[in-house]
């Protein structure tokens, strides 16, 4: 059971980091600049938050399967495919929440930074520093979604024993096997884990 828990953590953790890595520049762009189509792009990300996990799983499955365009990479049914899928899944969450946090920062702050001689990039970073609580929440919400989703993990990982089996796919399997107690235990571990992580982040953030 421990290896399943650890696997869940590193796969979903890496996916969240990846999503943050490409979501942050996007959010800075969408949250701080004015340009045509900004609203439309934001609505698109809002909508994508409701994308069913199995739909994303299916799309990536078609891309990655040996007959798909990315088939030669042999990524399907590996942890790498799960990381990619979960990262894409939570990107809209990262972007939307980050934008929200950035927009709430007083625009005067940015102007002030620039008057004090900060470059455009330094000014953006100043705003981000001011919005850090919202930013932490964005990353946390993304991790929670990644670690608790089933569709992508099942379709791209294949629930292979000792290789791509994570907590949610193990819960689905034990339920199908009729091992309800084990299922509930796994679910309890998953919840406890998410809870302690959130608690830790909240405590750290309050200081």
């Amino acid at each position, binding site marked *: 059971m421990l290896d399943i828990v650890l696997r869940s953590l590193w796969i979903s953790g890496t996916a969240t980091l990846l999503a943050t890595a490409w979501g942050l520049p996007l959010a800075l762009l969408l949250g701080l600049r004015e340009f045509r189509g900004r609203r439309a792009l934001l609505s698109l990300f809002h909508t994508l938050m409701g994308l069913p996990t199995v739909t994303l799983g299916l799309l990536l499955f078609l891309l990655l399967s040996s*007959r798909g365009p990315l088939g030669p990479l042999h990524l399907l049914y590996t942890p790498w495919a799960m990381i990619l899928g979960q990262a894409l899944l939570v990107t809209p969450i990262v972007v939307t929440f980050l934008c929200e946090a950035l927009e709430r920062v007083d625009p005067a702050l940015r102007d002030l930074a620039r008057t004090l001689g900060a470059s455009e990039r330094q000014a953006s970073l100043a705003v981000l520093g001011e919005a850090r609580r919202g930013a932490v929440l964005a990353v946390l919400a993304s991790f929670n979604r990644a670690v608790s989703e089933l569709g992508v993990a099942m379709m791209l990982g294949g629930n*292979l024993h000792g290789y791509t089996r994570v907590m949610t*796919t193990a819960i689905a*399997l034990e339920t*199908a*096997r*009729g091992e*309800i107690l084990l299922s509930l235990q796994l679910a309890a571990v998953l919840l406890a884990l998410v809870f302690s992580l959130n608690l830790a982040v909240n405590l750290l953030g309050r200081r």
Partner: protein
Amino acid sequence: MRVRSLLLLSLLLVLLLPALHSALRGPGLRVATTTSLYDTGLLEELARVYREGGGGRVAFLPVGTGQAFLQARRGEADLLLVHAPAQEVEFMREGWGENRSVVACNFFVLVGPPQDPAGVENHPPLQALSRIAGAAGEGRARWVSRGDLSGTHLRERELWEEAGYDPENLRKEGWYLETGAGMGQTLLVASEKGAYTLSDLGTFLTYLRKGLVNLKVLVRGGKELLNVYSAIPVNPERVRGVDGEGARRFLEFLLSEEGQRTIGEFGVGRYGEPLFLPAARILGENSDPQLASWIREVALLEG
């Protein structure tokens, strides 16, 4: 503004009415069954014929075999339709079921990559498994196991045991993958990894026809691969809230001339061959004595 929101709200309600209606009407007779049987479409076809003959509505709960037995014990299903003879006998002995009838059968197939690196084509099933294990030891082949204690997985384990391997030891081998997922998903994994696996014929043909798997049937037929589906009405005296009468009537239909004909003809149009054999009729008429004796043996009907 108020009028408009009221209008919107009522529109929403009207749109939700059909869902509400079906939610209040209830599911009809509840049949817990295995995914591999449900995925072929046979059950929907049987339910259609039954309903058109005035038999009422039937709802299927396609779940894992373990979960199906659990649902039956908890009164969440009125009838079981499964293919795990040892568990069925256990279920009956504990008094959960009223009676057990064989309704259909077919053969499992051993499928693998078309190149057949282990050279198992047309070998008897047990010999084929030995050849796969041998080739796998040299890194030339892989095996994908369902690993979910489904009827298919249990048979797979029995076959490995009969071939002289301990399934628990096999799990430690690098070439032995476990999906812990349904048949369809397992076939996709086998195809992707170029591995061998055991499948029911229906799911395999469905996936093959849709071009989803690059696999080939290499071994078929024989008593070892016979797959027998039984129906068990849940005992209403043991489990509260079970529709014993409805389950009995649907079972009668399954065993009737019409039910058996539907089973025996299913899939001919789509796959060019029937996916199931009308096992109840074969047993009743003894039209194929060898197959009938295999069915009795595999389904543990004697003793």
